[in-house]
């Protein structure tokens, strides 16, 4: 279950960015420093995570603003799904 969540989040991130890094997304990657996600990119990411996972991402905007890494986004989704992180 949790692997599926991670895969969906990675897919959403890959769709949100256009760099070569999209091919090799890892949990420890920094959203801003490694994947170069800017303000519009973060909104795009929240939208795509919503589409991929079905969570209400925009009710958790504070968590998205505070998220630093790929793993943080996965954790947001798991929290929203009521899963342990």
């Amino acid at each position, binding site marked *: 279950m949790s692997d599926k969540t991670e895969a969906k989040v990675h897919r959403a991130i890959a769709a949100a960015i256009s760099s070569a890094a999209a091919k090799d997304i890892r949990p420890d990657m*920094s*959203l*801003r*420093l490694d994947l170069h*996600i*800017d*303000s*519009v990119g*973060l*909104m*795009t990411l*929240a*939208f795509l995570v919503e589409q991929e996972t079905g969570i209400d991402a*925009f009710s958790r*905007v*504070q968590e*998205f*603003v505070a998220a*630093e890494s790929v793993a943080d986004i996965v954790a947001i989704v798991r929290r929203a799904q009521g899963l342990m992180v």
Partner: protein
Amino acid sequence: MSDSSIIDFHSHIASAMCFPPSFTSGVVDNMTVALQAAGLPIPREKVTRMHDATLDDPWCDELISQMDEAGIREAVLLLPDFTYALRDATHSIQELVEHHRLVRDRHPGRFRVFVGVDPRWGMDGLELFDRCVREHGFDGMKLYPPCGYPISDPALYPFYEICAELGLPVLTHIGATAPCLDFDIARPIFVDRAARDFPGVDFVLAHGTVHYPDECAMLCTNRPNVYIDVSGFEAYGIHALHSAFRRGINHKILFGTDWPVFRLQGRQSGFIERLEREGAFPSEMSNRDKELFFHGNAERLLAKKRIPVSTV
């Protein structure tokens, strides 16, 4: 720069009370256009919600936490007065002044306050500014020309006389901003007359590596009392900083972040890390010049402040 020596010369209180709805609405408009262009049907309401999430730190506790993490010792809180030009402001300039005073006092030694008063408020505005710097001990003036006045407007001269008397710098927005305001009136060259007429006042052109960088650099080179801050580098690229550092004006360039404007793009520590990581500093730039950029220039400007005679 991990020894907490950095001074951030350009920040704001992250609260909706400081930014009228018409101002933030324009920012959201630009974001929405970008998202629509990318083919993403994100409702405007959701974009607004995401943007508003960056304005959740009215007492600057989160900012202090991020400053500590980033090695920022002090930050200048800028209070532009939008209340004359944008009548949907939710708080009066007096209320905002009081809030800034409370925030500064809540975090002793961490914040300076530069206050703006729209010159069209007349004598009431001048008296408020005078009270701010003499009684509250605020540290400078913040101007926002897109609200409808040029930097060398004669109506500002009484304010500059106070700044000259008390050794206070004037920091002015330069270039484009929220679409509900004027862009053309905020050109750097408009500082020239005031800088000539008030050689004892230091004028800082905000976002000087982002908007009109050549004109800003020319003014820094040729007017002894004109400076720039680099806020906005987070969005507009490190390469512009690299160019600026090679223009022989490193004694005029001040570090600034414009918190919370770029909060969706990362933490304060991340922005500072990016400077080295993405090659902001030319190889020939000396450590001394880096120190001037991160804190020395700011310390020099802030140290000119004189205690008002009436409070000695």
